[in-house]
């Protein structure tokens, strides 16, 4: 038993982190960059070249042959850098297509597929024929749309959705549409619950990244910002907020790592652990992102600084494929694993 990353795992994280800090710093999202939607899809092929999207797939199908544990470490970094939520469609779509031996697989692994994701607004029945109201995220130019629920995951053509209407997005750096599935047939569909557990795990890892990034921003600001002639981080009122942020990160990091190992090694209690991760990590992300704004004071309330970006994205993550209310309901229905 060991929850610390191995040397190889640290190497993967380091190389991804240096790629992202060069090519996708959070500052890419600030004005004068357009303040609606994002252009992250331009990065997806290069990330594909790094093996990001096929990380957890066997080499025989063009993947890297690693596991959910490495995928989680990767998504933590992608979360720190606020990559478009379309990324979930690439990784999960690749897993789905790999299971179905779909011929599109290589375009998901290399990042060239134009994809977005859908999330239920209310009840959606997802099956070989699907119905219900959804939101589409970063689907403005997508060809494919991925959606996941407790029974599995499906890939639809964007054209399978009816009544696509743009709506203003709370997270304005993500495009948002309302749309509807009416007796729609997914192009690819697998009733494989593992896909949904992997979805929850990747969402948790992304949320961990947000929780850590906002902790680090708050701590850095508290060390340098001075009031009353002292760095504000020397005051317990601020120091304890930062300590609470660190405690939340540790809980989210550890539970997400644990859940990733349950998936990677095939232990009992997968749904219990992924759902716990989603609850703990999403709450940590929202709370840390909120506290980061408070530590920054007035500048944290502006669009000139970055804290608001993390808060808004944390709310998107919390909503995706089962919000906290749904996760609570789910976790009560499961048995406590050994």
């Amino acid at each position, binding site marked *: 038993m060991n929850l*610390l990353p191995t040397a190889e795992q640290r190497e993967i994280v380091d190389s991804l982190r240096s790629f992202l800090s060069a090519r996708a710093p959070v500052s890419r999202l600030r004005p004068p960059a357009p303040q609606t939607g994002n252009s992250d899809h331009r990065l997806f092929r290069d990330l594909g070249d790094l093996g990001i999207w096929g990380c957890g797939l066997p080499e025989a199908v063009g993947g890297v042959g690693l596991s959910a544990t490495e995928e989680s470490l990767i998504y933590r970094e992608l979360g720190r850098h606020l990559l478009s939520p379309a990324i979930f469609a690439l990784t999960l779509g690749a897993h789905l297509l790999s299971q179905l031996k779909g011929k599109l697989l290589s375009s998901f692994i290399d990042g060239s597929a134009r994809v977005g994701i859908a999330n239920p607004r209310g009840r959606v029945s997802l099956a070989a024929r699907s119905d219900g109201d959804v939101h589409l995220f970063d689907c403005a130019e997508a060809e494919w749309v991925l959606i996941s629920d407790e029974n599995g995951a499906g890939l639809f053509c964007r054209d399978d959705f009816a009544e696509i209407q743009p709506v203003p997005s709370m997270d304005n750096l993500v495009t948002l549409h309302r749309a509807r599935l009416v007796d729609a047939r997914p192009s690819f569909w697998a009733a494989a619950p593992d896909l949904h557990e992997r979805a929850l795990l990747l969402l948790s890892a992304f949320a961990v990244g947000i929780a850590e990034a906002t902790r680090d921003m708050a701590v850095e600001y508290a060390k340098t910002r001075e009031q009353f002639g002292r760095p504000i981080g020397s005051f317990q009122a601020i120091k304890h907020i930062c300590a609470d942020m660190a405690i939340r990160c540790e809980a989210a990091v550890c539970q997400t790592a644990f859940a990733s190992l349950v998936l990677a090694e095939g232990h009992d209690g997968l749904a219990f652990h992924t759902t716990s991760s989603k609850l*703990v990590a999403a709450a940590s992300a929202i709370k840390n992102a909120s506290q980061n704004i408070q530590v920054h004071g007035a500048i944290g309330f502006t669009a000139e600084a970055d804290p608001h970006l993390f808060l808004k994205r944390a709310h998107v993550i919390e909503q995706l494929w089962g919000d906290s209310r749904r996760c609570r309901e789910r976790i009560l229905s499961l048995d406590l694993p050994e």
Partner: protein
Amino acid sequence: MNLHFSAEDIAFRAQARDWLHDHVPRERRPHAGPAARAYDLAWQALQHDAGWAGISWPKEYGGLGLSLTRQLIWHEEYARADAPDHHLCFVALNHAGPTIMANGTEAQKQYHLPRILKGEVIWCQGFSEPNAGSDLGSLRTRARVDGDHLVVSGSKIWTSHGHLSDWQELLVRTDASAAKHKGISWVICDMKSPGLTLRPIEIMTSPNQTHFVQCFYDDVRIPLTDVVGDLNDGWNVAMSTLAFERGTAQIRDQIRYAYLVEDMIAKAAERLGNDCPLSRDEIGARLADLRADMAAARAMTYMVVSRADAGMRGSEASLMRAMVGETQQRARRLALDILGPYALENSEEDDWVYFYLRSFSITIAAGTAQIQRNIIGERVLGLPR
């Protein structure tokens, strides 16, 4: 990263499980008093006689010297078997014993360590003072050298089970002119020493529950041979073994609390009945969050052990302690809401109310939640003092 245990570890787990299953005392542990002392010592003696005592103690001192992974397995099985905690044996096994191992003379080791392992003696702590709590370094109980003795005068407080103890690990100021954390000595005090008087302090759980005592030292004579480590080096001696367990024993509490939450879920479902499914009730939502947080607490303990195993000696264990303590308090508070009006009955048979009241100490003892946040802020995050 991995959650694997070796074949030898798995065999060890089976062995521990079997022994615990057959030997864990079935009678309920008394909360306090001489009966509690007798119960704890008997359980320690039973473990010793079967060769299970001192799982984290080195072999040279009579322990088993188990790896951290094996300790973790032992504690997991211990909790699963619902074995009684160390309670009154805690200070001796986890604090005084290890301190003597690390800093004591040969004579001190030979005398005290076997008695601790065999379950013959109870130790208590004499650290806090009426005016030195979180700021322990400002302690003022004085000890002057008189021939081959120290002569101690002053007072200690919040000494758990002092009235049931044989020995005390005592911090005294032996050089008043030195800087705050210098000039302190770590000494072994015989609780039967002339000049030592105890005032029982009842705690908030229920009437007549003496948990603490205040100790008054009126020229108590302690042989210089009972100083552990160098005279005036007591602060370093005390700090050297604070993290002796390195987190493995925490897993016991977490497994127990995870079971408590399961009991709470059952009781809540029973109380709400069929009219209101748990998942639609506010209590259900809080139970769901607790279940998730208990899972995270366990994963955090695995992380603490992973770091210790890798030789990383930072203050990160404070993150786990802070989270775990507050989650346990939340569980105890929720248990009360599940009881509803019966929360007002503090009965002997149903101990949820007793332990709710008891849970207030979790964020005070061994460093308050606020001191832990200072430590996290300064030593983990590098914020200025």
